[in-house]
């Protein structure tokens, strides 16, 4: 069967199996930022945004994403369309994660970035408790979360001040 997605701002049509999960379809189509960690909806490293809402793509049948807007980390940074350059532009959330030391192994980072985006899109100035609640669904074993929470605060600041 076929599904249509607005994937990272571009209209796409994918041939899928009826029982396939969105995680597998996205990875097959090149979105390698979407990670597999448990396939049970418990670890959150496969989080993508569907119409702006964080969803564990390992548990979502791809067919149910039909017609939706899907954002993965590949679509987070502004695309350098037309520029012949090795410079890599980054979204303020990505910069905040780097500057805060919030990335260790990086395996949970895509899920954390997208969960942060979903939070900040709706709540540009979250409290620490709101941040903790928003990231609760993504597990990280490396950082102890301290610097990730710092990063979310810094990202909020960057976005508010359009830095």
């Amino acid at each position: 069967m076929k599904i249509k997605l607005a994937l990272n701002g571009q209209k796409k049509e994918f041939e899928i199996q009826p029982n396939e999960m969105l995680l597998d379809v996205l990875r097959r189509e090149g979105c390698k930022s979407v990670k597999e960690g448990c396939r049970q909806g418990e670890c959150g490293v496969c989080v993508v945004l569907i119409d702006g809402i964080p969803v564990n793509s390992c548990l979502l049948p791809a067919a149910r994403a039909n017609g939706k807007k899907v954002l993965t980390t590949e679509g987070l940074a502004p695309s350098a369309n037309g520029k012949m350059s090795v410079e890599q532009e980054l979204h303020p959330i990505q910069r905040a994660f780097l500057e805060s030391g919030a990335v260790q192994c990086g395996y949970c980072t895509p899920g954390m970035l997208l969960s942060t985006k979903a939070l900040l899109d709706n709540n540009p100035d979250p409290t620490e408790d709101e941040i903790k609640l928003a990231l609760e669904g993504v597990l990280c074993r490396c950082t102890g979360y301290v610097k990730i929470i710092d990063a979310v605060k810094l990202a909020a600041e960057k976005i508010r001040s359009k830095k």
Partner: protein
Amino acid sequence: MQREFKQVNQNIQKVDGTSLVRGKGVFVDDIELRNMLYAKLLWSPHAHAGIKNINTKKAEMLEGVEAVLTYKDVPRIPFTTAGQGAPEPSPYDTFILDNKVRFVGDRVAAVAATTPEIAQKAVDLIEVEYEVLPAVLDARDSMKNGAPIIHDEKEAVIPIPIIYEPWKNLVAHVDINIGNVEDGFKESDFVFTHEYETHYATHTPMEPHVAITYLDENGRLVIRTSTQVPFHVRRIVSRALNIPVKNIRVIKPRIGGGFGGKQEILIEDICSALTLKTKKAVRLFYTRKEEFISSRTRHPQIIKLKTGIKKDGSICAIDLDIIMNTGAYGSHGLTVLCNSGSKLLPLIRCNNVRFEGNTVYTNLPVGGAYRGYGATQSYFAMGVQLDEMAEAIGMDIVELCKKIHIRTGEGSPVFQALGEGKAGVEQKIGSCGLPECLDLGAKEIDWKNKVKLYASKRNSKDRYKKGVGMAMLMQGSSIPEIDMGAASLKMNEDGSFNLLVGATDLGTGSDTILAQMVAEVLSVETNKIIVYSSDTDMTPFDVGAYASSTTYLSGSAVIKAAQKVKEQILKVAGEMLDEAWENLNIENGKAIGTNGEKTFSEIANYTLYERNQFQIASHASHITHKSPPPFAAHFVEVEVDTLTGKTKVLKYIAAVDCGTPINPKLAEGQTEGAVLNGISYALCEEYIFNDKGRMLNPNFDNYKIYTTADLPEIKTILVQTYEETGPFGAKSVSEISINGALPAISNAIYNAVGVRMRKSPFSPERVLKALQTCHKEHGMHGENKTTDEH
């Protein structure tokens, strides 16, 4: 001694950071190979059984199945899965596949098929007739007369001359005796004897174990794997499959965390076997359930600790007795046990020390390397007992710690007595920031006020009671005279440098800190250093990421390589400027002399294209002669709900002396990650088994690890010292801080409610039960009922 640095001791962003935040395909599983097959394994449902018959016909006939392997199809060569130097101090007690299974989750057979679904279906079609054998499910029963023998195969052997008696289920034995503990106990005013017990837990890196193997254009086996030990993977796979090392290339891309769980040749052997059989690329990716059941765990220990102390706080004798459960295979069985003594005992000044330990087989999941590596277990026992001692002599535990800890300039006979499979290495402490750690941590948590205040409220009728607790810690930095790390470095014409290291960044940031060290030596920005690490064809050797070694060991190799390159640069610049190179300096990417200056780019172009051409390049190796300990003092404040037994951590302070932190932000990150893993282990992570040895909670719903929602306030204080033998004064940082939570939280629970938790984890059930027992026995809280006064 503090020094001025430009590149080290700075918060440089991770060199791989941009790729990681962009979600680039940098991990093992992120490549796609044509006609790649998917592997699935059949696991033992029994704790202990022989395989009487195994029928793979139906599986083989399934369309899409390209290989089915059982013990009949693979070489019968015993090896260890422990990723250690050669010869490994772990028994050769493992086969790729065997005719016997030794725990629920042991390998039985392997399938490679065109899709994961077909592979799983084929696994389900394999018919096995087992002869179920009696199982040993308690380490205390393992060495009893008549206990079932778990490794009765004749091949099981240990490759070094140490005690290994599989016919008794004995994997390793340690016995050291310094002074005379009996005399020490006689001198003591108080003697304590208690038993402590630590539990099964596992690493749970977010990236499970994964490998992709294939044959390259020359027919060589390429193993792309999520490992901490690429060179040991190459050597051990070579042994297990009986193929030459020269025909194997191991590539470690970015790794999604390891924590010791990937210091293990866990999947590379079987994945490679499937590639050799099919000549195709094969991918093996552990499910989360397989991670829990079939990967590696923290060795549980039963620790009997007896100590004697005088009223003035002098420790007169320590008698440490450990039974360690290694599960069905002896991976790291000796060395984790040794470490329980060697990382703990030298910390405490004491003339009479005895340590006896036995590691035993059981039919339970397999122990392995796990951050802390034995120290996590033994520091629990000692940390709690020190709190008891302090209370008995009426001394604040912080003051007691200050009195008894090893000082700069002091040695310990334990360093020499306890090595890893052989005698240890004598060393004197070169740097010790523990007094500052103790002071700053105590101040930060308001120790003196709170410890008294909370103890005074212990018998109140409040439902929620607060408490504070602390522990002092010590670890090591590398395995001296054993570990080797090497690096090579070459200069490019734009003044950038390629740094090639065997050292294995598994998310820790070692690529970054090694680049910072090169940049410091060469006086350039860190972003001029292009790092490529851990590819056995391309990079020099390194033992890998374990034993808190990379910064201290590989860092020193990198500095040596950079110094050689620096000398070459200066010599060329001297030739270009026509002056003695010894008089030149380098600064900000230039060589500067009295006749002028030359940029690195000019120098590199000169050597590549102009005169006396050669490649500015070097390589260097390093072995360590010491394992200088980092030190730490951890302080925790908790709140115990006396109605439910639930313990909540409110605040956690980790004051750490890691020498010079090469990258303070990364060092803090290492500390915070270790602390939270420690807290999570102390309070909620636990394997639950049924009476057949099956783990019942192999998922994150039922094996809970801490999330952001559970996160207490964590504060890291880096106490900077300068270790003269270390790279720019650095020692290790990664492991030490996982060891504080067990003792500090146990002590805080005591401060809050007056019960001693000597068995981990401190789950609500266990704390509640302890509270109820205490009420029943004493009708009140807080009486110390276990001290024997002479």
